[in-house]
């Protein structure tokens, strides 16, 4: 019951936020604000996940890289949106490019980390060995 209520409140909040974005903002800023809203939501969820995972665990380390990538990408979106609202100094173009590059660098690192986790936690070989052993056992029973 409590969870349903929380979900309802969250849904109303999101819908109200979306309504406000579409109603109050000029059309050329809608996509920027939507990106920022979802980006911030993604950062909040990822941070919560990071805090609840065990210290030094593989998944926590992956989550850390993913969070870094998200922070860079949202920061770069923030610079883009701000530049549409006000005149920013020229160096912010470089900043935007740097943030974007860092975001992709963090994404690549996170992808490599998840590749390693996949290799580490995958049990495909063990499964094949078990299947072979089970088949051998079945054949032995049949022979008997």
């Amino acid at each position: 019951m409590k969870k349903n209520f929380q979900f309802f409140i969250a849904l109303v909040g999101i819908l109200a936020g979306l309504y406000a974005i579409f109603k109050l903002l000029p059309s050329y800023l809608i996509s920027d604000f939507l990106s920022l809203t979802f980006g911030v939501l993604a950062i909040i969820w990822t941070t919560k996940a990071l805090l609840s995972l065990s210290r030094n665990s593989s998944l926590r380390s992956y989550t850390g890289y993913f969070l870094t990538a998200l922070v860079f990408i949202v920061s770069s979106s923030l610079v883009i949106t701000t530049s549409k609202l006000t005149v920013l100094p020229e160096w912010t173009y470089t900043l935007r490019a740097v943030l974007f590059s860092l975001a992709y660098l963090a994404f690549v690192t996170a992808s490599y980390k998840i590749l390693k986790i996949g290799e580490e936690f995958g049990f495909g070989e063990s499964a094949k060995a078990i299947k072979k052993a089970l088949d051998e056992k079945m054949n032995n029973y049949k022979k008997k």
Partner: protein
Amino acid sequence: MLKKDVDNFASRIKNLKDYIALATVPAALYNKTNIKIVKYFIEEEDIPGVYITLNKPYKTVQSILKKSKIDTRLVIFIDCVTRLADNSEKKSSNCLFIGSPEKLSDISIAMDQAVRAIPSKQKFVFFDSLSTLLLYNNAEIVARFIHFLASKMRMWKVKGIIISLEKDKNKDLIDKLAQVCDIVVDIGGEK
């Protein structure tokens, strides 16, 4: 006493499809009990499974099981001990080495992956042991982890065995966990 207790345990679980059993064992009978239970699953029931060891390194467990003529090819091991001493070990053909018993997230993921990889309808999960988990984590975290593990075991539809040493020292925790387990067995005890 041990044989009678394990036989009694086996007769209680024989007709159950999937369950979670908490077995409390005195230190003196710990090794023999583990071997008997694993042997029961592999040799008598022909069920493959996952053995999570927090007490002894994988190589030691494997050699003990092999000496007892248990087909270890049917077991996927998750070793949370070896890397405490040798951090270079990561994975062997049927064992995944977790850094330490504190890494509960990694243990959960490894168990989930291992159980789902086993190509058989019936599987067992042998968790050795609750008492060692308590050496590295506080009681509340362990209780939450075992509670989570129990719900996972129900979802996986496996035969789950959780071993605990020294019943008296872990009494509060065992009483809590008894509520989420289907069977609580006191091996070598008076019950």
